[in-house]
C-alpha cells in the first residue's frame, strides 16, 4: 500500500492548485479517496468523528445488493435453460448477459459524475455507487444496451445532476432510469417476452406472475418459487429470500430505515387484504392473496432498496411511517386496479418521492405549532 500511496503523493501536486492538471483535481480526488480515506483532520467543531462516511454507507448498500445480484445472474440462466444444468452453466450464461449492463451503467454514470465534478469543481459524490448497480438490477435482461445507456444518461443528468447532484435530487435516480425506459421503449420493458433472456428465440414462456394475473389467468408459480425467486422478472427483484438477506444487513447496520420498510409492508398488506375482502369475478388481481402480493413483482426489492433511499424519502421520523405506508397502499392499488401497468411499485415510490417533502412539511408544522402554543400559554 505504501507503494501506491507514494505514487499518488508523487503525482498529487499536478492536480493541486497551481498544478498542471488542476482542472482535473476533483477526478483525481475521487480516485484517491476511493483508494485511501484522506488524512484530513478535524478543523472546527467536534475533534473526534464517527468512523462512518458516505462511502461506507453506500458500500454497505452495495454489499446488501450482492445476494440478490448473484441470484439474479444465476436466475437469468435458469429461466432460459430450465432444469438440469449446473450452477456454473446458469451463472456464466447470466453473467455474460448481465455484466455488460453493469459495465454500461457504472461506466456511463460514473463518467458523467466525474465530468460534472470537474466541470463544477466539487468532489465526486458517492451516490452513484449504489445507483449504478440498482439500474441494471431493475431492468429486464433483454433490454438493448443502447436503451439502457440512454436511460442511464437521462437518470444521471436530468434525474440527479440537474438538481445539484447527490443529496439534492427529488426522485430516486434508478427509478427515473426505469421510468424513462418504460415510457420510451414500452415494448422492451413490458409484456410476456422481455423477462427471460432470448425468450422469443428460444421459445421460452416468460410471463411474470403479475403479468399472468393481469391477463386474468391464475399463475402456476408455487409460493415457494415466488419466495425463492425461481420465476421470470427484472434481474434483481425475483428472490425475496436474497432481498431479505440484504434487508437484514441494512437494518442491522442501521443504514436503512426500518420504519419505511415496515410501514411499506403494512400499507401493502392492508390494501391487499381490502381487495381480498372485496373480491372480483372479472379481475383475478382482487383475489390474489394479500401476502403473496409481497412476494411477487418489484415489491420486496422496492421496499428494501428503493423506498429507503434517504435523499428521496421523507426525512422526519413520523414522515417515514406515512411515506412508507402510502407506498405500500399505492403499489397494490396500481397493481390491482390499473389495467395498463401490471406492476405498481415503481410508480408508487416515484409518486411518494414527489410527496415526501409535503409529508415532512406537515410533520414539521405540528412541531412549529406546538412551539407557538407554548409561547401563547406563557404570554397568557
Amino acid at each position: 500500500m505504501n507503494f501506491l500511496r507514494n505514487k499518488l503523493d508523487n503525482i498529487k501536486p499536478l492536480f493541486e492548485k497551481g498544478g498542471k492538471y488542476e482542472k482535473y483535481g476533483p477526478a483525481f480526488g475521487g480516485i484517491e479517496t476511493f483508494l485511501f480515506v484522506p488524512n484530513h483532520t478535524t478543523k472546527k467543531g467536534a475533534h473526534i468523528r464517527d468512523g462512518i462516511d458516505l462511502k461506507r454507507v453506500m458500500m454497505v448498500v452495495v454489499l446488501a445488493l450482492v445476494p440478490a445480484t448473484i441470484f439474479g445472474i444465476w436466475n437469468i440462466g435458469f429461466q432460459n435453460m430450465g432444469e438440469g444444468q449446473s450452477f456454473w452453466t446458469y451463472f456464466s450464461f447470466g453473467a455474460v448477459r448481465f455484466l455488460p449492463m453493469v459495465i454500461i451503467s457504472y461506466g456511463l454514470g460514473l463518467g458523467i459524475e466525474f465530468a460534472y465534478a470537474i466541470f463544477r469543481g466539487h468532489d465526486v459524490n458517492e451516490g452513484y455507487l449504489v445507483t449504478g448497480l440498482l439500474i441494471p438490477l431493475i431492468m429486464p435482461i433483454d433490454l438493448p444496451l443502447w436503451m439502457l445507456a440512454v436511460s442511464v444518461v437521462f437518470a444521471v443528468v436530468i434525474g440527479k445532476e440537474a438538481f445539484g447532484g447527490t443529496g439534492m435530487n427529488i426522485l430516486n435516480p434508478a427509478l427515473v432510469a426505469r421510468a424513462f425506459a418504460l415510457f420510451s421503449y414500452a415494448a422492451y420493458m413490458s409484456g410476456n417476452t422481455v423477462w427471460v433472456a432470448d425468450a422469443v428465440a428460444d421459445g421460452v414462456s416468460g410471463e411474470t406472475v403479475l403479468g399472468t394475473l393481469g391477463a386474468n389467468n391464475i399463475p402456476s408459480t408455487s409460493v415457494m418459487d415466488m419466495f425463492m425467486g425461481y420465476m421470470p422478472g427484472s434481474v434483481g427483484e425475483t428472490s425475496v429470500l436474497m432481498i431479505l438477506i440484504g434487508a437484514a444487513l441494512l437494518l442491522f447496520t442501521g443504514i436503512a430505515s426500518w420504519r419505511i420498510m415496515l410501514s411499506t409492508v403494512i400499507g401493502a398488506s392492508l390494501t391487499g387484504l381490502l381487495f381480498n375482502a372485496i373480491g372480483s369475478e372479472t379481475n383475478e388481481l382482487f383475489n390474489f392473496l394479500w401476502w403473496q402480493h409481497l412476494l411477487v413483482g418489484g415489491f420486496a426489492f422496492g421496499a428494501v432498496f428503493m423506498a429507503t433511499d434517504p435523499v428521496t424519502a421523507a426525512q422526519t421520523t413520523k414522515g417515514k411511517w406515512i411515506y412508507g405506508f402510502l407506498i405500500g397502499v399505492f403499489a397494490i392499488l396500481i397493481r390491482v386496479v390499473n389495467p395498463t401497468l401490471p406492476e405498481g411499485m415503481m410508480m408508487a415510490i416515484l409518486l411518494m418521492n414527489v410527496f415526501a417533502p409535503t409529508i415532512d412539511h406537515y410533520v414539521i408544522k405540528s412541531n412549529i405549532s406546538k412551539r407557538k402554543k407554548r409561547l401563547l400559554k406563557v404570554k397568557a
Partner: protein
Amino acid sequence: MQIMSKDIRIKKGLDIKLKGQAQQKLSSVPRSKIFAIKPSNFHGIIPKMTVRVGDKVNVGDVVFYAKQNDQIKFTSPVSGEIKEIVRGAKRKILSIKITAAAKDSHKDFGVKSPGKLSTQEVKEMLLESGCWASIKQRPYDVIANPDDSPKAIFISAYATAPLAANSVYVLNGKAKEFQAGIDVLGKLTEGDVHLSINPIEASFLNDVKGVVTHKVSGKHPAGNIGVQISKIDPVNAGEKVWVVQPQDVVTIGKLFLTGKYDASKVIALAGSQVESPQYYEVIQGAKISDIVSGKLTGDNNRIISGTPLTGESVPESDSLGYYDDVVSVLPEGNHYRFFGWMPFLGNDKLSMSRTFFSFLTPNKEYTLDTNFNGEERAFVVTGEMEKVMPMDIYPMQLLKAVMTGDIERMENLGIYEVAPEDFALIDFVSSSKIEAQDIIRQGLDLMIKEVG
C-alpha cells in the same frame, strides 16, 4: 409558575467512552510565569482595554470591559504586570498576557451577605469582580446582559461529555461556597434556580437549599444544560434564562464570603495521550505547557482546551480557556487509511452505526484520533441526527434553515433553545460530516444581529 423537581431520563444520545478518563486524584501544577486572558473565549465580546503594557494589576483588577456594555468587566486572575497585548488582523485583540508575580494579592471587594443586598447591588459586585463573565444566557449562548431579568437560572452538576470533569469531584469540599453562590444567584431571578444532579452520585449537592433539584440520568447529552432546560422549562421567543457552571457558582460564593475574586479551579487532564490522567488545581488563564509538560506520551498530539466534542485546539504556548474544566489530549489523525471506507474494516474506530465490528464491544474505551474519517458532503442519510438529539427539535431542518438564513423558520424550529454544544454529537455522528456546531453558532449570531 412553580416548577417541581423532575426526573429526567435521556434515551436519545451517545456515550462516547474514551481512553484516558481522569482518575480521582488531585495535584497542583507549577504556577505559570505567564497567564493570559483571551477575549475570543467570550463570544461576541469586543474588548476595550483599561490597562496598558507595563501596568501592574492585582487579582480582580479590571483588564478590559465589553464595548457593547461597559458594565461587563473582565478582571485579572493573578497579580503581576501586563506583559503584552497580542493583536491579530485588523488589530483585533487576541490575548492579554500577564507576567505573574510570585504571590497573589487580591483586590478587596468586601465581605457581603447577599440576603442584605438588593438585586442591583449583587449585580454590581459580580460585574466589578469579573465574575459576571461566568453567567451565560440562553438563547444565543453568550454572556448574560446584566439589564435583563431572567426567567430562571440553571446549573448542571452532571457532566456526560466524553472525558468531562466529574462535577461532584471538582466540587468536593466546597459545600459552603457553593451554597453561598446559590444564595447570590437566587437574588438575580424572580424565578427558580434549577440544579441538575446525577442521582447515583451521593454528595452535598442533594442538600443544597434555595434550588429546585432535578435528577438527570442517561446518555450524553443528558448533562448538557440546554437539554435539561428543554425538559424543565423550555426557552420561548423573547425569554431569557441564565446558566452558570458549578465551579463558577463556587467562585461567586467565595467572592461574597471572602470579598476576594479567586480564579482557581479544578480541571481534569485527560485523554489517551496523557500518561496518568487526573485532576489538577490551576488558576484561570494558566499556560497549557505548564499543565501538560512531562505528562504526555507521543509526539503527534492535539491538545484541546475543553472536551473532545466542544473544546478548542490549543498550542502548548496558549492558555486554558475561561469556561473549560478539562484539557484533553488526543492523537492527531493525519494519516491515510487504505480502503478505509470498506465496511467492517478498521475496527478500532467507534461508530453509532454497526458498520464496524466495534459494536461488539460497547463498553470498551476507545483511543480516537482527530481524523475526519471522510469528506464533507451534502445531507444524504436521514435519521442519524435525530438519534442523538433528545430535545424536541428537528435538527436537520434547523441546520438547513440556518444555512439558508431563513430567520422565521429558524425561530419556528427552536433556534432559541439550542447552543452549539447541543449539536456536538451531530458533528460526531454525521456521515456527511456536517459541521453542525459551526452552523448553529452562525445561526445564533445571525439571530443576535437581526432580532437581538
